[in-house]
């Protein structure tokens, strides 16, 4: 997972959740890379919660503008048809269910779709930023994360142990080993894809959450 290629593979898989015409919010880190895998000919408009629809590529040196940044505070550009708005309006879009898809990182996801991604144990809490609004508001929320933590413990849990970012809000989890749908009603995950060369046994050994297998 630390290697660039593993991160890229996750981003590439996450990009398959995009649909033509979607308005999408991409979180910081791996989710940001998803923008590089939008299929040719597909129109996807990227939302930045600090007040922009229509994120473009990073600027050339001579295009850098301090008034134009994304939610990760990076300098950016815009695409044709972009619009700016204030933070209250921006989170109105999010909370009101107008964002078709949010993709974000996670520390833990539970089998009922709870997510924890803002308080790291033993570290100073930096704040939740816009994450709580995004998981509560976007029409569909996809978590992208490593399957296990550094000690090898599952990050897919029956119940999250860390303080939550949101309850029952994750629809899909993508890890370097597999892809799971969240069956909120049944309170379990559904294993729908294995990454190349990953076995069902490996998933069983590394997954604490309840899940059923329904490979597609």
């Amino acid at each position, binding site marked *: 997972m630390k290697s660039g290629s593993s991160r890229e593979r996750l981003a590439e898989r996450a990009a398959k959740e995009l649909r033509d015409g979607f308005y999408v919010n991409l979180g910081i880190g791996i989710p940001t890379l998803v923008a590089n895998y939008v299929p040719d000919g597909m129109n996807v408009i990227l939302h930045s919660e600090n007040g922009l629809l229509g994120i473009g590529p990073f600027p050339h040196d001579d295009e850098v503008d301090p008034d134009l940044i994304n939610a990760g505070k990076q300098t950016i550009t815009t695409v044709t048809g972009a619009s*700016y708005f*204030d933070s209250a309006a921006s989170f109105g879009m999010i909370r009101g269910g107008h964002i078709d898809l949010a993709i974000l990182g996670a520390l833990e996801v539970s089998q009922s779709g709870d997510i924890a991604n803002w308080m790291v144990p033993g570290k100073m809490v930096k704040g939740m930023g816009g994450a709580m609004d995004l998981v509560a508001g976007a029409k569909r929320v996809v978590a992208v994360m490593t399957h296990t933590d550094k000690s090898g413990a599952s990050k897919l849990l029956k119940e999250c142990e860390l303080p939550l970012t949101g309850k029952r809000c994750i629809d899909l989890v993508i890890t370097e080993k597999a892809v799971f749908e969240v069956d909120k009603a049944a309170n379990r995950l559904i294993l729908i894809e294995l990454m190349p060369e990953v076995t069902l046994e490996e998933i069983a050994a590394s997954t604490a959450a309840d899940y059923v297998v329904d490979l597609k």
Partner: protein
Amino acid sequence: MDKSVASAAEALEKAGVKDGITLLVGGFGLCGIPENLILALRETGAKDLTVVSNNAGVDDFGLGLLLQTRQIRKMVSSYVGENKLFEQLYLSGELELEFVPQGTLAERCRAGGAGIGGFYTPTGYGTPVAEGKETREIDGKMYVLEMPIRGDVALVKAHTGDKHGNLVYRMTARNFNQPMATAAAVTIAEVEELVEPGSLDPDQIHTPSIFVKHILKGAHYEKRIEQRTTR
């Protein structure tokens, strides 16, 4: 109705800035922050301030300058990750901190400005943010009751303003400046360009003059970039 003042210092004095007040400060990261007003606020020496701002600046710029001088007693923010001094002051107990989800922070300011007594948001339900707050099921979905935020003084930054106090922001520098401009007893706006009334298209004013009490042209803008990212 000329609301322009000659300097940030004059604006702060007219607004009655003093120890213990609550300030709303616009900006996201270092983008769209009222640089000149923050510098002038440092000069006033006003302390025990409660500052509502999405972020806390960096160590040597923006609100970080007021952390250096220990003028801030409490921050209300959604994310303070860019500031090392912040962490020290917080851990030593010199600084209080209230985390508010970014969208809830923006909406609480908007509610404060729009006379809403409280609102139900799905954000934060089932999380530490909802602890001690009223929750409620509406149409099968769970919500948390959040209350409006109002400040004694709001410090906002726009790109262009006229002497009546009408404001136009530029790009993503709009952010919290717009809702915060509505939510204080006295709002001071600093701008890069101060123009005569009538220069701005009435259809294209982001913050109408009714919300702005004092307006000034900033003496100097550094507009520092936090993450200069190029291709």
